[in-house]
C-alpha cells in the first residue's frame, strides 16, 4: 500500500525502529551538529510551534511532589478517552471498508492497540459489505478484530468502539454487536462503545466510497450509488452520508444511550463550518466523546477535489471549538508526538491514528503499530516535560504559537 501526501517513509521507519526515530540517525552523533531542518509544513497545525516558558510553576509542583527534579519519564500519559481508561492519549481510528481496511492487517492493528492499552474504533460499512458472522475461524472482519483485541488486552484498559453509519443501520450493526456473546467480555468490563459517524475529514459532506468489482457491486447496489468509472478496474460505490440537523443528532445520541445503556457513545464529525455547534450539541445530548476529523484526515478513497479544497483544517476546527465542554478527540494526519501534543494543547483529550497505523502494520504486521506509538509517546513525554508539565490534561493553548497570529489564544489557561 501507498500513502501519498503523507510522511509515509518516516512512519515506516518508526514502524521498523521505534523511538530511536525520534532523533537523527545515531551514526551521526558526534560527527554532525543539528538545527532546524526547515521542513515545509503542510498545514497550520504543523506550522505552529510548541513554546516552552522559562518560568515553570508546574515543574516546581512536580519537583515538590517527587522530592527531586522531574524528568521526561515522569510525564504520565495515562488518561480517559471517551469513557475508557487509556494508557496513552492516543486511539486507533477507523479504517473503513476498503480492501486495506478490511484485511488481516486490521486484525494485527487491533492486537497491537490492545497491547498498547489504547482504544480502537472499527469502521463503518464493514458489515454491509463483508457480512457480520462468517465462520468462527474467519481471520478478518469485525468479530476477528474484536477477538484479537480481547485476547491481547488487559481488562482494565482500552475499549472497542464500533461505528455505524446510515447504511449500516440496515445491517443493524450495533444490535448485532451488542447481543453477540463474543462481545460480552467487552460489555462486562465497560469497554464497548458505539460511534455515530456523521462525517469524515477527507470528504466532508460525502459518505463512504469504495471501488468494487462489478459482481460485488451488483450485490449491494440497492443501498449505494454506483458509478461505472473504471472499465478495467471496477465501479465506484458511494454510501450516503446521512442527513443531520441539530435535533436529529441530539435524538440519535439519546436513542443510542437508551438502547445500549452499557455502551459508550462516540460521535465522529467532519470538519464542517459549524463544527463547534455540532460538538456542543453532541456533548449536551450525552456523547462520551466527539471526534473532529480535520480536513487533513486520510481516507481509503476520496475525490481529489475534496482532498485539497473542502473542509476546515484541524487547527481551525480546534480554534472554533475553543474550550471543549466534553471529551474532544482529534484526528487528521496524526503520526508523531509534536502534532499530537499541539492538538492536546488546543483542547483535545486524545488523537486518532488512521493512515499512520495502517502504514505501520503494513511495514511490520507484528510490531509496526506498537513501535510507531512508542515513538510518539516518547516524543510526547519529551515535549510535555519541556513545557514544564507532566500530564496531558494541563496542556493549554498558551503552549502553542501560530506564526503571524497576535490574538490571544482561545485557551488561555490550563484546562481543569
Amino acid at each position, binding site marked *: 500500500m501507498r500513502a501519498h501526501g503523507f510522511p509515509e517513509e518516516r512512519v515506516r521507519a518508526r514502524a521498523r525502529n521505534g523511538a530511536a526515530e525520534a532523533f537523527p540517525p545515531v551514526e551521526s552523533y558526534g560527527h554532525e551538529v543539528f538545527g532546524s531542518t526547515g521542513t515545509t509544513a503542510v498545514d497550520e497545525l504543523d506550522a505552529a510551534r510548541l513554546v516552552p516558558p522559562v518560568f515553570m510553576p508546574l515543574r516546581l509542583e512536580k519537583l515538590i511532589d517527587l522530592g527531586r527534579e522531574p524528568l521526561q519519564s515522569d510525564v504520565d500519559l495515562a488518561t480517559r478517552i471517551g469513557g475508557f481508561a487509556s494508557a496513552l492519549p492516543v486511539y486507533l481510528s477507523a479504517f473503513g471498508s476498503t480492501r486495506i481496511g478490511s484485511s488481516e492487517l486490521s486484525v494485527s492493528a487491533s492486537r497491537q492497540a490492545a497491547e498498547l492499552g489504547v482504544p480502537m474504533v472499527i469502521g463503518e460499512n464493514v458489515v454491509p459489505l463483508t457480512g457480520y458472522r462468517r465462520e468462527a475461524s474467519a481471520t478478518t472482519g469485525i468479530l476477528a478484530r474484536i477477538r484479537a483485541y480481547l485476547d491481547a488486552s488487559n481488562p482494565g484498559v482500552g475499549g472497542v468502539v464500533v461505528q*455505524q453509519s*446510515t447504511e449500516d443501520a440496515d445491517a*443493524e450493526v450495533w444490535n448485532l454487536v451488542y447481543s453477540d*456473546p463474543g462481545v460480552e467480555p467487552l460489555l462486562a468490563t465497560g469497554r464497548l462503545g458505539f460511534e455515530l459517524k456523521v462525517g469524515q475529514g477527507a470528504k466532508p459532506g460525502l459518505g463512504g466510497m469504495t471501488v468494487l468489482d462489478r459482481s460485488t457491486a451488483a450485490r449491494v447496489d440497492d443501498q449505494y450509488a454506483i458509478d461505472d468509472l473504471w472499465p478495467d478496474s471496477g465501479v465506484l460505490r458511494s454510501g450516503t452520508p446521512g442527513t443531520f440537523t441539530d435535533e*436529529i443528532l441530539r*435524538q440519535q445520541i439519546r436513542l443510542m*444511550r437508551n*438502547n445500549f445503556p452499557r455502551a459508550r457513545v462516540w460521535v465522529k464529525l467532519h470538519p464542517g463550518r459549524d463544527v463547534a455547534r455540532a460538538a456542543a450539541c453532541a456533548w449536551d445530548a450525552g456523547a462520551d466523546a466527539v471526534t473532529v476529523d480535520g480536513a487533513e484526515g486520510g481516507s481509503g478513497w476520496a475525490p481529489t477535489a475534496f482532498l485539497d479544497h473542502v473542509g476546515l483544517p484541524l487547527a481551525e476546527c480546534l480554534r472554533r471549538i475553543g474550550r471543549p465542554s466534553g471529551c474532544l478527540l482529534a484526528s487528521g494526519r496524526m503520526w508523531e508526538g509534536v502534532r499530537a501534543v499541539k492538538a492536546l494543547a488546543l483542547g483535545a483529550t486524545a488523537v486518532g491514528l488512521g493512515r499512520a497505523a495502517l502504514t505501520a502494520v503494513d511495514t511490520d504486521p507484528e510490531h509496526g503499530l506498537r513501535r510507531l506509538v512508542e515513538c510518539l509517546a516518547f516524543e510526547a513525554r519529551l515535549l510535555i516535560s519541556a513545557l514544564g508539565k507532566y500530564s496531558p490534561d494541563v496542556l493549554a493553548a498558551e503552549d502553542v504559537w501560530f506564526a503571524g497570529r497576535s490574538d490571544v489564544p482561545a485557551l488561555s489557561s490550563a484546562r481543569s
Partner: protein
Amino acid sequence: MENATSVATEPTVDRRPPPPARHLSSETTRAALRIQAAVLTAARAFLAGEGFTELLPPIIGPVTDPGSRGSKQLDVDYYGHKYKVMTSGILYKQASLLAFDKLFFIAPNVRAEPPETCSTRRHLAEFHQIDVEVAGATRAEVMGIAERLLTHVVRHVLTSVPEQFEVLGRDPLAFVDLLAGPFDVLSHREAVAALHRLDYPQSPDAEIEWTGEELLSEQAVRPFFVTDYPKGSRGFYDRESTTEPGRLRNFDLLAPEGYGELVSGSERESDYATIVTRMRETGENPAKYRWYLDVVREGVPRSAGFGMGLERLTRFLTGLHSVWQVNAYPKIPGEVSP
C-alpha cells in the same frame, strides 16, 4: 418499540425451563395455558363488542418495527431478498386503518433480546401481543380501551376458570384493587422523580430502566399508566407532543406487585414528512421503509393504539415466577430451545 421491554432482575439459574416433555405435562403449565386461553377468549369478545375487526398479522416483511434496548431482528431469505420476522405489527396496523377504523391482531412477534435478559423473568424471544389500533382516537381514548380490556379479561378469567387459580395457588384477592379501578396515571417525569426519591439513578432522557420499572411496580396496588416518555426512548411512530416538544404522546401500562410492563402504546405520527424526519432522529434509514412510506405518503388516518403482551399478562394473572412458565414452547433469549 410496541410493548417495549421491561424487566425484573434476578438471576434464576435454577429456574430454567425443564425439557419440553416435562414442561408440557406439568400441572403448572397446563393451568397457565388454560388461563391464557381464557384471556384470548375474553379479549376477543371484549374487542368484538367494542366494534373491532380481528385481522391476521403478517409474519415476515421487508421491514419491521426497529429494535430497541438492544433487541435485534431475525432475517429470512425471501426469494433472494432479506426479509424480517416481525418484531411488532405496528407498520401493518397503521396501514390496515385504510381498511378498518378499529382493528386488532393477536400477533406472534420475535425479538432476539440481548442474552442478559435471559435472567429477567419477563423476556421471551418469541411472544405474542394483543395489538390494537383505532383511527381518529386520542391517547386518552386508547388508554381507556386498554384499561377496560384488562379489567374485562381479569373479571372473565376469575369467573370462567377459577379452579386454575387454585391449582396455581394464586389468590383472586390479588385483583380486588385492579377491579375496583380506576388506574392511576403518572407522567414519565413524575416516574423519574419517584425513582429519584427511592435513590434510583434513572436518566430523565431515557426509557425507565427495567429495575426502575420493577421498583415502581412493587409499590403499586393496581395497574398504572406512565405517559409522556421522552423522544429518543421510543420509535419514530410515537407522535411528538405539539405543546411539549421532546415529549411523546405515548404510554405504558404497568402491573403491580413487581410484574412491570404489560402494555405499550401511543398516538401515532401520520404525517409523512414528520415520519421521515423522526426516522432520521431514531437512526433509521428511510429507504428501507419504502412500502410503508409510500402508504403514508398517500395518507393514513391519525390513530392511536397499543400492544398488550399476552405472556406478560398471563404471568401477572397466574402469579408465576417467570414468563417462560406461561408459554408452551418458551424461547429464552440466548438459549437454544424448541
